[in-house]
């Protein structure tokens, strides 16, 4: 599904050169739930941005379904993001001037061929999936953090993406809310077979996923299956 080969990312300013990622090699197969852990500044979010085609590596190859993305132009990359990838962010990234329903519909605005009625139906289905059917006309500022994150997940779901990239989705939530969000992601992975890559600081959350990759100073230091996920699977 996603393959990273010898990825290197260097941020260059006039005076400083910062290596965010160094020699990263990864393969995320279809249907896997992977968590990425590491201290702040170790390159987790950069990795997610590169996987999500929001950023380009300084060196190395990114492949989606076996196709190197370096050959794609901006329009094609945008199309892949729209069709294949759903994003969930720590700070939700909801547009406060749009209702919950309108926020969820956003990805389909950039997908041609979906009628307004179909878009509405899919948005309602996505909101139902995350348990927010009763809040469709609310605005983000009228919701709790957990509810906002659920809206963000519904927005990621509406386009029925094959991959969900979640950047600390429980980072701003208390443990109960975090648990709820985690369960939604687990259900998506198990029931729909959605590939999920989640960046987290929370060891407990990470242990619920199938595979845990640890980063330190921009380098991948471990990559192992988790026991908890195997246990749950059984």
């Amino acid at each position, binding site marked *: 599904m996603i393959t990273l080969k010898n990825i290197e990312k260097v941020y260059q300013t006039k005076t400083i050169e910062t290596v965010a990622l160094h020699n990263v090699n990864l393969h995320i197969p279809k249907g896997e739930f992977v968590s990425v852990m590491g201290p702040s500044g170790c390159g987790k979010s*950069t990795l997610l*941005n590169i996987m*999500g085609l929001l950023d380009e590596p300084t060196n190395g190859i990114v492949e989606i379904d076996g196709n190197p993305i370096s050959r794609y132009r*901006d329009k094609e*990359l945008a199309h892949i993001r*729209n069709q294949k990838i759903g*994003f969930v962010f720590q700070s939700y*990234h909801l547009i406060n001037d749009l209702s919950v329903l*309108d926020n969820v519909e956003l990805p389909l605005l950039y997908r041609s061929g979906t009628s307004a009625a179909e878009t509405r139906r899919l948005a309602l289905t996505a909101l139902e999936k995350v348990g927010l059917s009763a809040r469709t006309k609310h605005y983000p500022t009228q919701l709790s953090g957990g509810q906002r994150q659920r809206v963000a997940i519904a927005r990621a779901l509406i386009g029925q993406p094959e991959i969900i990239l979640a950047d600390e989705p429980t980072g701003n939530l208390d443990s109960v809310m975090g648990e709820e969000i985690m369960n939604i992601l687990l259900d998506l992975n198990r029931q729909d077979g959605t590939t999920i890559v989640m960046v987290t600081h929370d060891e407990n959350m990470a242990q619920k996923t199938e595979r845990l990759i640890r980063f330190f100073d921009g380098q991948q230091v471990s990559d192992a299956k988790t026991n908890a996920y195997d246990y749950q699977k059984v």
Partner: protein
Amino acid sequence: MIRHLFKLIWNRKKSNFLLMTEIFFCFLVLFGVMSLVVYNVRNYTKPLGFEHDNVWLLTMRPSADSAALNHQKLEQVVQQVRAYPEVSHAALTNSNAPFAFSQMTDNLSYGNKRSSQADHYEVDDDYEDVLQVQLSQGRWFGPEDNAAHHKPIVINREMQRQLFGEEEPLGKLIPQNDSVNYQVVGIVDHFRGYSEYSAERPAFFTRISLQQSDKSFWGELLIRVKPGTGVAFEEKMVQEISGIGKDWTLEVATLEKMRQNKSKLTMVPMIALGLVCGFLILNVALGLFGVLWYNISRRNGEIGLRRALGASANQVYRQFIGEVLVLATFGLLLGVAFAVQFPLLQVFEVESVVYFLALGISVVVIYILVVGCALYPSRQAATIHPAIALHEE
């Protein structure tokens, strides 16, 4: 997407209120100036109804001699002027010669119809030749009118429309007073003697006959000179006329010079208003540019999000241009609702088409203005790197 943009702008109406208000007022000022410009340009492109090239106006102020003596001298002056080889034709008129700062208006009635403030020109038989007035029906004045039972009158089409409608006007009698009637002998399509920028108004011509009115004095003599006639002839003519009308004050001006002076009367306020309007538009443009730039830079997170959700750079660019167009549309809707009252209520009795044209031009100018102001900030928004934009949020 259009529905999404309308929703977004409508939901942000509070923060966009000032921008919309600015666009609304800018539109109103532009509409006002454009109405004036369209009105004047439309009038300018319409035929005047006469030729003013090579026509001079000799203005004569008589002395305190008796009216009969002045009349006698006037006859001599007219004969003298017509006798010059440099002169093709010469015609007496009252003080409202073309492009003069003088008007003479009158109301005429026919049956139950009444003309509104028609321009009244008293002219002699040669006026047609001097100004090369084009008659569309009937004839100009001539010696045959000396014995006419009714006073001959030539009217323009606008006058015909007001008094006769679809009725054939030639030969019809129009009462001047209880005992005297005018009889329509000719019709001209156009005659706009006041100014090139003035609208076609109802106008009529009545006949001056020096022979029939032995004490009257007309102080304006229109002279068509042959091409190439210059200042030397003007000096000679004035000197010789001074010999006839001793103590008379004489003044010669070309109709071309008078036309230019009259044009300035319209052009100067129009240019002044245009400058004020241009300055206002420049201010609005700079304000819009600044506000749009600020707004877009404040929305980096949203830009990053949209890119993440599948918007290409070009779609982000088009979205911001679209937003500005929607924003302008809200301001313009209000402005158009206000401006459209002018043609509906027939304000200033100007043709509706003038207002509608001005309205259309103003709308287009405002759209061009806002798009022009949004191009650069939108381009900047489109080039924002999505990962950086999301990180900034």
